[in-house]
């Protein structure tokens, strides 16, 4: 069982076999793609202070 599925199970999220397979596929993809990340750059712009009131 993949780590994500184990972690989900530990948190009480019940997954069937199909869901586990989809999750495992995503985990594999992201693990492989992680090699493409430039670890020196800012992670992402998820937060910025708005200068103008919206």
């Amino acid at each position: 069982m993949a780590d994500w599925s184990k972690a989900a199970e530990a948190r009480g999220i019940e997954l069937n076999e199909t869901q586990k397979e989809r999750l495992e596929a995503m985990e594999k993809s992201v693990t492989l793609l992680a090699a493409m990340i430039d670890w020196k750059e800012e992670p992402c712009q998820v937060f910025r202070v708005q200068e103008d009131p919206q």
Partner: protein
Amino acid sequence: MTVAEAAQALRSGQISSSELTEGCLNKIDKLNPQLNAFITVTPEIARRQAAQADAELHAGQDRGPLHGIPIAHKDLLCTLGVRTTSGSKIFADYVPDFDATAVERLAEAGAVMLGKTGLHEHACGVTCNNPHFGPIRNPWDPSRIPGGSSGGSAVAVATGMALAATGSDTGGSIRIPAHYCGVTGFKGTFGLVSKYGALPLAFSLDHVGPITQTILDSALMLEILAGHDPKDPSSVRRPKESFVPAPEDPAAVLKSIHVLLPRNFFFEKIDTDVKRTILLAAQNVESAGATFVMGAVPDVNQLNAVANLTFAVEAAAVHEPYLRKRRASYGADVASNVDIGRAIPATAYVQAQRLRTRFQQVWRMFLDKADCILTPVCPIAAPPIGQNTVDVASQLEDVRVASTRLLRGINALGFPAAVIRAGYTPSGLPVGLQLIGRPFGDAQLLRIAHAFETALGVERLTPPDVS
């Protein structure tokens, strides 16, 4: 009748908005019991707005091309005083006390609201086989799905129950039903059209846009829908521009553009009839003057992986509170998708966003080499209702995966994409083609798509038993 044709007829006095509206309401009465495109029909509102539109036009007050045009709204766009269900049991009785910005802008432009169209539950799927409101049916073959999630809007436009409609697109939800139902759809650059008042599915992937008979009609709709909205944090501030293609010779437009036809991924696992239809369309456009370049596009599987993960996590973030309290109110497929999102670690989501930025840069540079990319929309024509898997080039594939895999990545990039009619399969099912443009190159993409549409001249056939 298209929006552009109706607008002309209204101004020449050939027809009134009230007559157009009654025509649509009659079609809804006749066809909706079978096709189930509308969840809510609003005849009183429609008749009142049509009468007002007629009175204004009579008095010389012209609000523009949508003035007096009967349209429908996807039932996840909030409408003041009219229930907005999102195709779900959770929101089955929700009556908003405000209009979504898209609804408000179209109303200000004089459009007449016929009602609210059905969708896949919470817009989280492609079949529109809705467990709460019943299946929506494809007018070309009612035993088949219309595609989704904006299936009701596409069916309404394909049958003339509405002259145009709004849709939303998180992983293909405007483009898939446009392809399966033989109409036109446009997903603008992320941030171009306000999402305020659209019940969310995945906040960084959701787009609101038009579903119409022609690309010119989509441009007329976008002209009204686009523009900064302070109520939507993702809305962008840009100088005002026109999206309506100028009347010009399509051959001149085509002679000035380079179209990229991907050598990899998009045509690799695809139904033979669909492939033949798209490639024939490409050949016809090339004959009309466009320069085609064959080339390999960046890895779409990688892009889809990032899009899938982003979608799952953001959808879980939206639905987790409801799912915890009211799991039984969710359809099995939607609950399953949300559960997967809940199981993904937060770190993976952040890494996916870093990759997404990287992919955006790569695809942006790639699009410097061409004016647009031409691809199929879906690898198949509309599959039968209730079928979970489809045979695609002798391989069984999940209907949701097959329907979204050529589209979902474009939502992660946020780039604009248009779907126009390419032709029909030998069994008479519609096939669309997708044109992907540069970010904020929406006006240029519409111009190209309009030239394609004119050059191809694909007949706007009426679905059987509808005329």
